[in-house]
């Protein structure tokens, strides 16, 4: 770094015990049960701890729990907490905190929490460190539910905070995780800070994703919110920040040229782009209208817009599951393959009764992935003769507005875009977005009995062959009913300064075992 001024820029040389991180989006709120936005979960991973945590093979490992006991029919689960777990305010972590946290989480987690709640006869604190589930039906995947990384994650909060209505946001951020949240330094839209919690006792094992010992090598971790990709890129090159979660793929060649920076694929499990449809209101409450969009949608267009020109960064995805995983399937994916049919789409739309009403497309213009998809959607809908109302918002507002079940013209929506981490789409267990239970489903509220039947079949499958059959049928059913439209499979990069070691590939930024030299 050539320097023309004598005194080093103090703001730059922040010292090796502060990590300055640029997250994928603004941290506008911090309730990981209330919202499923990844950026909130990523921050929450520092503040709160989990009962179990998945490792890099997505296998749940005990984290806050010492051990468990399960009845042979998977209906009674007894857990024992580790000793001397403490919250940031000094109080010990007790079973009743766990019970309250689980209760709050179960209400909002459609793919696993809700079914568990339905079959729970009792969830009780047996004593201060033991708690027990008594189910009236077996649920073999309990450990995965308690330790999965897909949102909402089961974070353990103090009882008084966990008793907040699951549909309202918490206002205190006290957890038992490796770092405290500095609420007094939080400037929403600009900065957030986390401070090492001296009372955290990491597990002895090596860390792997959410499992093992979460050893933090920094006194502080600062999140610098830089929505302007050009500014973030310049700041990283200049050493003003240390790690950028989501560098634009178009800027990667430039970042690669810098001798001080390392750039690599962020997560081999990649992401699935999502064209999310509101099934409650016309025209898309009619499956024909949804199929019309499906037959005209070009994944190449979407992926080109999202990740740019490097073909190694994306794959077409005629299905809903993550490529290169055991359950990946393309059965039933024909509507997304082959030549796009605009005339057919227009015909189907007319059949479905579309008469030119404005289609409200929510576009978060401050996140590159959603803006790119939103722009392509505006073009696509125009091509099939729909009247697009492009509503430019920020990601936080999209998060709020997509939760509204109001008619589109009165504060609701028809379409929004997002993406799902590949880790969350390997099978139906963590796959919130695939659930088609109607009212309790994820935003868009798809309802499909066929899909639900196959999801149940997968959960009940006795062996891998049965699982595969269920998944194939599930894929076809979801494609047929157009639960949502996958816009393609893509990978992203992360970039960091070379003096930061320990950065691993994962579906979320892993802050433990990271060091600055």
């Amino acid at each position: 770094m050539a320097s023309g001024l004598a005194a080093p820029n103090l703001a730059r040389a922040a010292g090796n015990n502060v990590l300055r991180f640029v997250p994928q989006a603004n941290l506008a709120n911090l309730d990981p049960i209330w919202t499923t936005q990844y950026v909130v979960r990523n921050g929450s991973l520092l503040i709160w701890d989990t009962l179990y945590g998945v490792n890099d093979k997505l296998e749940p490992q005990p984290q806050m729990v010492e051990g468990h006991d399960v009845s042979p029919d998977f209906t009674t689960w007894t857990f024992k907490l580790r000793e001397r777990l403490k919250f940031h305010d000094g109080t010990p972590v007790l079973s009743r905190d766990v019970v309250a946290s689980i209760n709050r989480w179960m209400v909002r987690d459609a793919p696993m929490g809700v079914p568990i709640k339905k079959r729970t006869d009792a969830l009780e604190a047996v004593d201060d460190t033991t708690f027990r589930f008594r189910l009236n039906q077996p649920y073999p995947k309990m450990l995965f539910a308690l330790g999965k990384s897909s949102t909402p994650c089961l974070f353990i909060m103090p009882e008084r905070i966990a008793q907040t209505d699951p549909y309202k946001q918490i206002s205190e951020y006290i957890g038992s995780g490796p770092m405290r949240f500095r609420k007094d330094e939080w400037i929403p839209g600009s900065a957030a800070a986390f401070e090492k919690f001296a009372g955290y006792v990491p597990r002895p094992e090596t860390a792997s994703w959410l499992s093992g010992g979460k050893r933090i090598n920094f006194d502080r971790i600062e999140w610098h919110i830089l929505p302007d990709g050009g500014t973030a890129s310049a700041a990283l090159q200049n050493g003003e920040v240390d790690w950028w979660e989501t560098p634009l793929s178009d800027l990667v060649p430039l970042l690669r040229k810098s001798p001080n920076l390392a750039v690599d694929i962020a997560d081999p499990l990649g992401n699935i782009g999502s064209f999310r449809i509101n099934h409650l209101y016309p025209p898309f409450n009619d499956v024909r209208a949804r199929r019309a969009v499906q037959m005209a949608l070009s994944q190449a267009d979407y992926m080109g817009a999202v990740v740019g020109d490097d073909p190694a960064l994306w794959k077409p995805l005629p299905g809903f599951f993550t490529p290169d995983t055991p359950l990946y399937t393309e059965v039933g994916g024909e509507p997304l393959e082959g030549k796009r049919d605009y005339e057919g789409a227009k015909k189907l739309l007319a059949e479905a009764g579309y008469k030119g009403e404005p289609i409200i497309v929510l576009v978060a213009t401050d996140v590159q992935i959603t803006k790119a998809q939103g722009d392509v959607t505006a073009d696509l809908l125009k091509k099939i003769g729909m009247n697009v109302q492009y509503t430019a918002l920020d990601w936080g507002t999209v998060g709020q507005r997509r939760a509204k079940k109001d008619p589109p013209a009165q504060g609701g929506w028809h379409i929004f875009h997002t993406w799902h981490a590949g880790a969350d789409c390997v099978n139906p267990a963590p796959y919130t977005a695939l659930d088609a239970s109607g009212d309790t489903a994820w935003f868009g509220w798809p309802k499909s009995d066929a899909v639900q039947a196959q999801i149940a079949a997968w959960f009940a499958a006795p062996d891998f062959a049965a699982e595969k059959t269920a998944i194939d049928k599930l894929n076809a059913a979801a494609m047929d009913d157009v639960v949502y439209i996958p816009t393609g499979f893509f990978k992203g990069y992360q970039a960091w300064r070379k003096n930061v070691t320990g950065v691993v590939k994962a579906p979320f930024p892993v802050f433990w075992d990271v060091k600055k030299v």
Partner: protein
Amino acid sequence: MSATSLPAGAAAPLPDVLPPVRQRGRVMTFVVRHPTIVAGGTLVAIMVFIAVFAPFLGTVDPTALAPAKRLRVPSDTYWFGTDMLGRDIYSRVIYGTRVSLLVGFSVGILTAIIGAFIGCVSGFVRLLDAIIMRAMDGLMSIPPLLLAIALMALTRASVQNVIVAITVAEFPRVSRLVRGIVLSLREQPYVEAAVASGTRLPVIIWRHILPNTLAPLMVNATFICASAMITEAILSFIGAGTPPIIPSWGNIMAEGRALWQVKFYIVFFPAVFLSITVLAVNMLGDGLRDALDPRLAKRL
């Protein structure tokens, strides 16, 4: 004067002492005397031409996506290159001229009309004067960009709403200007005479007041036009202006801002066009002001 028709006894005409002055054409005189008007006016005319004849200037559909051809550098096929969705930047910039000129001219004209109306009402109707001027003072106390931003927050993004928002932010100053003129003219003898002789108010305004406001209004309108174009660009840049699907210079720059280090041409071309247009309108305004009334230099 023919030499043959001199009356008898008249002295001989004086000899030509000074060499004959070369007659320039009237046009050239105008150009030499008012270079800024000509330069500014020509540039503005060129921009208007570009805006009106956009479809015929070698452009393609500015909203047509072609992700396979994204981020091409300027070349023979794509004169200004393509953006991150494969859209032709040359076409977008050319069509963007329409938005900027539309916003600029509309705001300039609307503020002049509304400002003139309110200024006249305020100047003549004593009762309303205090109320109106207080209201105008209040509106003027809100920095114009913030006022425009706040108004845009109330409605959907659209070109009309941007025009309305910027107009509301700018017309109070114009009304003050016109009111000042009305107040000073009201004391003039011919106006007092007109009032005394029973001429109706609208006629007085039309015949005596408005002609005197034309010059400052025109000059002011050009400056407001320039300012409106920059305000629209800023509004679009921060995402509160024209909707992103309509190509406007502000939008193009906003979309290209993240890539300014690697593909600076996305921001460069609209910036150049915007700067030149604003420059031209400012020059036109300067020239008009110097030609019509140099004393305005201190106020405007």
